[in-house]
């Protein structure tokens, strides 16, 4: 480049700046003395089996507790509750009952058996 050649001719690349004697020789030592200490990293922590399993156990316990709470507060449906009461059963007409019996293919003997096994509470 023409302008650069001209500049190099006029000014050159000579360094007009100086430094105190021994500056560079002493610099690294002075700097290293000023550097803050770095913390040595701790050895890698050992993860025990309990620590691995703990979150799952806590989750399971929480789930069980939740289910138990739901059962206590919401309640279980009564298993022995009859589909209809004796009073309701008395309202059914004989024709209706006969139709049901025909459809269920239940003979008299089977019906007798069923009735004697039924909870007497239903008929009280």
């Amino acid at each position: 480049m023409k302008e650069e050649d001209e500049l190099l001719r006029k000014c050159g690349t000579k360094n007009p700046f100086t430094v105190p004697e021994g500056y560079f020789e002493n610099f690294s030592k002075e700097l290293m003395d000023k550097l803050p200490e770095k913390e040595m990293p701790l050895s890698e922590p050992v993860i025990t089996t309990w620590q691995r399993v703990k979150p799952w156990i806590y989750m399971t316990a929480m789930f069980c507790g939740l289910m138990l709470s739901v059962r206590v507060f919401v309640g279980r449906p009564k298993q022995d509750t009859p589909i209809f009461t004796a009073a309701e059963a008395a309202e059914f007409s004989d024709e209706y009952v006969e139709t049901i019996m025909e459809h269920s293919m239940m003979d008299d003997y089977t019906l007798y058996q069923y009735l004697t096994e039924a909870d007497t509470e239903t008929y009280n």
Partner: protein
Amino acid sequence: MDTYNEKEIIALLQDPKRQREAFECIVKQYSEQLYWQIRRMVLSHDDANDLLQNTFIKAWINIDYFRAEAKMSTWLYRIALNECLTFLNKQRAINQLSIDEADAEMVNKLEGDSYFSGDKTQRLFQKALHTLPDKQRMVFNLKYFQEMKYEEISEILGTSVGALKASYHHAVKKIESFLKECL
């Protein structure tokens, strides 16, 4: 460790027990070239010394984040030049001077500086250099005095090679016309 081997040094930096020893090698390797780059920007030895120390302290604190994707020199130059820019902006703000006034004041101080041995032409040259914006002056210093390749300057400054070539070309023209007026 007598000869500097960057691969070896980077490997040693990963070992916490030898990290300090590796860093000392880096300091010995790069302190002088970084110093002159900083000195050309700030002119004063005391300021250059402070900035050089800050550069290495910052590098030490962040050494664990150094990615060997870039060269160590590129990384250090980046820190050093950012320190220079921050310093120069702070100086102007503290003294409440315009960019031109601040730069003129810095060059005038060379007159009584015991660590400046240049003649009248050199003083004028420094005055001409300080008419350039900071980043343009950085590019000029790296190319003219250090003969650094444009590709390397591009990695340091994050500027394209084309833009750097244009910047350098304009810098040379500005300095040349300044010197023509004064000499």
